């Protein structure tokens, strides 16, 4: 089924259950679906595992969700930033779990989930604390670490435009994790600046085809 165009962000995030793993797009605030996160805060789902590159910036978006105590665990590459005070406080108080994943592994593990790959051998992090306890294999003289997919119950992504089928185009570096998360989420919800009529987007330029997208909302 192609995407449902929602009238409101509240409608777009309806039905997200407690305990879900939620993939949240964005690199810093570029591509972060802030209005969807605000709607998720209003919707009330809690005990979430959030997968996102960062662990919130300032007091808006993901940081606001964290501040409400809705997140049990963060899986991210770079939690510590100059404006990550919300996460820092929760982490130091022992109120949130953290799994740090190298940025490329974060992306590739979601890509694997979306592509039906059971696991993959990756050279990143060999010999470092982030490979501890993981299976190691030598292939043609090089050492690799076995990495497992990261699948989301939900993906919240920010894109530039959508058509009414849910085909998505992105804008500049705000693309970042969006296309990968769109493949790895069971329920994929995209916030866009504009929904255009089907046929108005150049088929050659579509980055995320509608097959991956369940709901779109202009916000």
């Amino acid at each position, binding site marked *: 089924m192609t995407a449902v165009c929602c009238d409101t962000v509240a409608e777009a995030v309806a039905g997200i259950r407690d305990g879900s793993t939620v993939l949240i797009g964005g690199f810093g605030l570029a591509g972060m679906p802030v209005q969807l996160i605000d709607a998720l805060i209003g919707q009330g789902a809690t005990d979430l595992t959030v997968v996102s590159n960062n662990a919130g910036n300032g007091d808006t978006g993901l940081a606001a969700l964290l501040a409400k105590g809705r997140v049990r665990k963060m899986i991210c*590459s770079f939690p510590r930033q100059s404006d990550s005070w919300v996460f820092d406080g929760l982490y130091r108080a022992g109120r949130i779990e953290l799994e740090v994943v190298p940025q490329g592994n974060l992306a590739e593990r979601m890509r694997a989930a979306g592509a039906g790959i059971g696991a993959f051998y990756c050279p*990143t992090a060999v*010999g470092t604390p982030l490979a501890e306890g993981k299976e190691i294999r030598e292939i043609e003289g090089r050492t690799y670490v076995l990495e497992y997919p990261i699948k989301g119950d939900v993906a919240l992504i920010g894109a530039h435009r959508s058509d009414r089928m849910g085909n998505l185009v992105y804008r500049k570096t705000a693309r970042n994790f969006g296309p990968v998360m769109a493949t790895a989420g069971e329920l994929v919800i995209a916030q866009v600046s504009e929904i255009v009529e089907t046929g108005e987007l150049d088929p050659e330029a579509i980055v995320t085809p509608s097959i991956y997208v369940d709901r779109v909302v202009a916000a």
Partner: protein
Amino acid sequence: MSLDKHEMAALVARDIRPGSFVNLGIGQPTLVADHLPADAGIVLHTENGMLNMGPAATGALIDPDLINAGKVPVTELPGSAYFHHADSFAMMRGGHLDVCVLGAFQVSARGDLANWHTGEPDAIPAVGGAMDLAVGAKNVYVMMTLFAKDGTPKLVPDCTYPLTGLGCVDRVYTDLATFVIAPEGVVVRETYGITFAELGERLAVPLLRLDG
């Protein structure tokens, strides 16, 4: 005279071949961009999904959708291309990137890199793309001061900080000397305001002279 960070950046830039695809790490390595010749055809990669990244944006050119890995607003150049994160790291890991320039807490004599975590119990670990860059780029250049603020060397026999990558560093550019991490050992290429003998006294790493 020892070098300042701009002079170090100029030395790194001198060693980047025309036509290279290059990733400059967050912080001091970004200064290297200021010293790359405009006509050298060097293409900058930023891991958040862009090739042929232009200079930092100012004024009306600032666009929140166009940032570098340090989340600083940047600009497009003719020939810029955007791609998603999995592609960005695939091009890195797949050996398509010629050079990356990174900062470091420590580099070992074998080229092990420590640059992501101090290992202190209250430190919040954050790795970003450092481990992916360390194993992915064909050449890894480190730019750092040779000694920490407390005077301890950062070029060491073995890293004591948690590792970012094993045997991945090819060259080290510091305020006092530049080094090549070669199969036969650590080779001193140039010194600045210090002699080869003095370097040998202050570092616990066996050093080789470039001229043998």
